[in-house]
């Protein structure tokens, strides 16, 4: 069956609770039965509005990250002079002091980096704007930058603030912000890109991975584009354009000759049809389906859908929020082949499980470690190409980590430790809100209520049977299941292969 390439909206009456669940899973990271019921109650227009234009949702209750901008500050002129003098004089004591200072700054930066990872993971769980975090994940994977190379957690934080500021508006603005982003400039060595010795790294990745896609340019285009980006440096925490090392001459990029600089280079890239298709592919891979990352490898129906999304992106002048509003209402998005057919990223799995199960607060440091072991260390994508996503998330090893992470959220039992005890502090009863007393005493009704939200309606009766049997075995007929029984039923439900899908 082919996936619909239509971006026309579904009729409001098709927006069932199952569709509301799908919307919440894909635009955000899923939710409890009550969250889904509430979103469904809003109707299609309002529900999409809330997720595509999340800015209207108040987040003033969230605590911002307590960032220290000065940990990795550059040496002052005096310090530098003192250092050079010590080196000239072979003053080993002073040199050792400098070395110690540098090492301790690195250590402090690594601690801030871990704190930043924890802050983000907790925010994904706590935020009333799950769609914003999902969007930040998209850009983090697209403009993938690694703390391990940047070695400045403050700049990683600043980059994420840029994703938050521009991530739901114009992609053009976001792309222009990225050629000036200090973390990106360090990561792709552009602060070494000077007129006399151009460094191609940023120019190459900007074309290959951030805009045009592989194969849409020549090696000569890269050489010329690198010249356009000369002098795009940073000074401490800010962008700095160094005119003296910028190459102001004419460059020929993609057949156009002009005295390109960073901004006009980005503008040129956005004029290319290839860019709209490539960004559409990224949106499609993030929100719709796990398809290959190369356009020429897409099955025909997916290629048509991506093309339609690319057209929509152009129509909206690269406005991401507008484009996603159209997508989130569309026949394409609610196609039968789309629903329940995408593999959750580790961040989605962890934040989504905590949000939808309403588990007690767990050690966020363990949650961050778990994400890493599942292949998604926050602020540490494996390369500038970001995470592969889709099936690459799942192997025999990550399968167990995914299941065991859910057990940790539910029971407090840390699967990486041999002897950690379960805590028994989780009460799933609030998830049953909305069920009558009679339904609560009916194992089938209880499992259906939970499974409809956690697994989705596509997971059928035969797959729900083991949980129903478990409740029946542990509960007297006509009585509601006790807390411990519900905990075990949820442990099984989250261990199901279907729970890895959204």
């Amino acid at each position, binding site marked *: 069956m082919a996936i619909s390439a239509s971006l026309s909206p579904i009729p409001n009456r098709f927006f069932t609770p199952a569709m509301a669940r799908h919307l919440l899973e894909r635009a955000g990271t899923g939710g409890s039965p009550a969250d889904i019921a509430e979103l469904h109650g809003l109707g299609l227009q309002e529900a999409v509005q809330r997720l595509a234009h999340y800015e209207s949702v108040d987040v003033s209750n969230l605590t911002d990250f307590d960032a220290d901008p000065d940990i990795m500050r550059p040496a002052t002129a005096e310090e530098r002079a003192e250092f050079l003098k010590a080196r000239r004089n072979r003053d080993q004591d002073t040199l050792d002091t400098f070395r110690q200072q540098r090492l301790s700054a690195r250590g402090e930066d690594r601690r801030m980096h871990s704190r930043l990872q924890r802050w983000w993971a907790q925010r994904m769980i706590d935020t009333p704007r799950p769609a914003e975090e999902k969007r930040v994940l998209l850009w983090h994977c697209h403009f993938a930058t690694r703390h391990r190379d940047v070695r400045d957690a403050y700049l990683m934080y600043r980059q994420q603030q840029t994703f938050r500021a521009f991530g739901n508006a114009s992609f053009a603005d976001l792309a222009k912000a990225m050629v000036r982003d200090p973390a990106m400039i360090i990561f792709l*060595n552009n602060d*070494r890109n000077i007129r006399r*010795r151009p*460094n191609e*790294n940023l120019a*190459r990745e900007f074309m*290959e991975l951030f805009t045009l896609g*592989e194969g849409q340019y020549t*090696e000569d285009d890269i050489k010329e584009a690198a010249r356009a980006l000369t002098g795009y440096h940073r000074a401490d925490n800010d962008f700095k354009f160094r005119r003296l090392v910028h190459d102001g001459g004419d460059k020929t990029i993609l057949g156009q000759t002009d005295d390109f600089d960073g901004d006009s280079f980005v503008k040129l890239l956005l004029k290319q049809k290839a860019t709209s298709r490539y960004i559409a592919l990224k949106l499609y891979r993030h929100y719709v389906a*796990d398809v*290959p990352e190369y356009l020429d*490898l897409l099955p025909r129906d997916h290629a048509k859908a991506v093309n339609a999304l690319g057209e929509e992106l152009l129509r909206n002048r690269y406005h991401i929020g507008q484009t996603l509003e159209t997508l989130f209402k569309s026949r394409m998005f609610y196609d039968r082949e789309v629903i*329940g*057919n*995408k*593999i959750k990223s580790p961040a989605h799995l962890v934040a989504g499980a905590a949000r939808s199960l309403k588990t007690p607060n767990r050690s966020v440091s363990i949650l961050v470690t778990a994400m890493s*072991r*599942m*292949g998604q260390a926050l602020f540490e994508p*494996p*390369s500038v*190409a970001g995470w*592969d996503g*889709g*099936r*690459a*998330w*799942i*192997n*025999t*090893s*990550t*399968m*167990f*980590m995914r*299941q*065991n992470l859910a*057990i*940790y959220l539910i*029971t407090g*039992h840390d*699967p*990486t430790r*041999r002897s950690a005890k*379960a805590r028994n502090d989780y009460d799933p009863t609030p998830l049953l809100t909305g069920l009558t007393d009679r339904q609560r005493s009916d194992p089938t009704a209880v499992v259906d209520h939970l499974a409809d939200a956690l697994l989705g309606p596509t997971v059928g009766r035969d*797959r729900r049977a*083991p*949980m129903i*049997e*478990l409740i029946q*075995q542990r509960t007297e007929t006509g009585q509601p299941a006790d807390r411990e029984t519900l905990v*075990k039923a949820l*442990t*099984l439900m989250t*261990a*199901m*292969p*279907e729970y*890895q*899908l959204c």
Partner: protein
Amino acid sequence: MCDHYHPLSTETPEAVPGAYTRRRFLGSSLALLSTAATAPAFLGRTGSALADTTMRLSSTPGGVDHRVLVVIQLSGGNDGLNTVVPFGDDHYHRARPRLKVAETDAVPLQGVDGIGLNPNLAPVGELIDAGQAAILQGVGYPNPNRSHFKSMDIWQQGTIDPVGADRGKGWLGKALDGAIKPTDPDAGVAAVALAGQSQMATMGRSIQAVSFDTPRTFRWAGHDLEDGMSSAYNDLTEMPDALRRRDDPASFVRRTAMDAQAASSRLRKASEAKTNTRFPATGLGRQLRSVAGMIKSELPTRVYYVSMGGFDTHAGQGNRHTNLLREFAQAVKAFQAEMTSTGHADRVVTVAFSEFGRRLRENASAGTDHGAAGPVFVFGNAVKPGLHGKHPSLTNLDQGDLIHHTDFRGVYTDLLENWMRMDASAAVAGRFKTPGVIRRGV
């Protein structure tokens, strides 16, 4: 049977009776056999193997059916010029004023003039002297791609432009597809990757590597919660045969879950097995230690895949690169020693590659940029030891990079056909000249 000269061992494998006896595959998860109808194929035979205590890994110990290939991926683009150092060439010194390795520091190679190894590769030099290591120079492919991802894809795929169903498949996966039927009892563990993410190199149509990096978490923790949980979990994880053949995401995840459960107990024990040799406490050291444990435990696994990163040395390359080479050389040395001391050395060959070499001329940041051709290491008793091929020219360059004379697909062909005795033509999509790194008659 291998009967070639073996410099470090006084014993041939036949002298160790029972060393190759197939042990139980299942360990403690025997209960699983009740679901045999839907269990992965490799569990099926194990069931009967348990009754047949005479069953061995091979009727001829160390026979070609049980040869093992270990692949070490050096990610980031290893600087081949500071790995196998052409110190006798003035162009090297001129191009590398700050990064060059001096002749006096390089590890000399017997019978080779003007070329030596990086000082931290001394253990590799010892392995060459012992007849256990070979280095292929100037390995690459036409029109080299200088993007990490594209070039790594090319090396992992074993083809430059894969077409049709070969897309997204790797050279090892394709070779194993051709050698092992999906219904073969050992298909489920034909390849093991010590990696958090599955590696494309080991992805075949029916063969997919078991992947894990931390043995302790390689099981479902819910088994500990209550006795009754395990059977419900097994019910939810098992899969009807009809579904196993489907390829949608849900079936894929379900198949992976079932394979994971089946492989869990056996692989965990094997990878944590005690070793005779002390392995370095480095990333690669730990990975090769696990591989040694699994080989010693006589898993029917044919391919092990490990990796080591950090080779993308654009700036301040000096110490960083030599430290990486030390980690590499020490880990491999320990691995070869362990294979020899456990009597498995004759059935294991190890290959180490990187997605590209680096540019001849060092850059302004005391680093090197992405290049093209580079060296490939091959270890094991079956290799023709020493350097293979000429050092690539330092004057005849392509965009400042070394030009390859040995196609990596020929290296793969050598390893697959002459060592693994598998057909390589599908894996590398064609026929390529082999460099002869595997000795004739092995």
